């Protein structure tokens, strides 16, 4: 199983599933399956998605569950302080 942050990233940018689907060349349903973790994308699709969000692949997909972004940001701030 591959975990991902597609739903969060899409929501942050106020994008619809259709927008992401159109750019990456898959059906809207497939974006839904990806977001729920019901489908692991091919390497090609993973790179297309990371290119779309302008983020490295490992920032979007991970074999381990992601920690909440708020935790990571808080920890970063604490380390800087």
């Amino acid at each position, binding site marked *: 199983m591959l975990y991902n942050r597609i739903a969060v990233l899409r929501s942050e940018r106020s994008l619809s599933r259709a927008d992401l689907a159109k750019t990456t060349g898959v*059906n809207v349903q497939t974006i839904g399956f990806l977001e729920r973790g019901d489908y692991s994308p091919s390497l090609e699709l993973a790179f297309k998605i990371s290119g779309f969000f302008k983020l490295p692949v490992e920032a979007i997909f991970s074999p381990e569950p992601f920690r909440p972004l708020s935790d990571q940001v808080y920890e970063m701030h604490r380390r800087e302080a």
Partner: protein
Amino acid sequence: MAISNEFKLAMKFRTRRRRHIEVVVFLGMVVIGFCSAARPFQAGLIYFYLYPVMKIWKGSYASWDLRRRVIPVSTLDDRAMLEHGVVFEELGKTKQKEILDEYRGGTLLMNSFPDEREHQLQAEAHMRAYSLMRVLLPVLLLVCWAAWRWVNGINVLVLLSWVVVLVLGLPQMIVMWTEPEDVRELQAQRTLEREA
């Protein structure tokens, strides 16, 4: 504006439960087909032999592949129900505007091409069907041969034609049985069921 009957019907026939019923009916028809081979073939009943084969071919082998891509969207409520699981008037202004921008009356909302997930689903279904048939097919052919050898008046052609229907229809049946429901569709189906 209201939800169209075509949309309601399409959603009803897309549920996993409904698909499972279709698969069971398909298998039932195949069993009946095998049993019908025990009767001597009568040329006058050719329609009786061909009708279920054609019906299964149209309904199960070819139909789901098309049905899964096409949803008739005739009204704004249809579109809102599909996208958000509620009628158009219950949506916020932004969502209403999004739908109005994309909406075209009388069009069909469809996935115009099978993408990598659908290709994978098909490939997995064919692989499962192959794994099943590599065991089942020799057994069926052995049964056909034994029936032809020892049962009087058995029609091997009818028997074999049903074996062919089973072989060709099985991958599609596996897709129909295993394909999960889309979350948006599930939400719309639940709302429609509640309203009914």
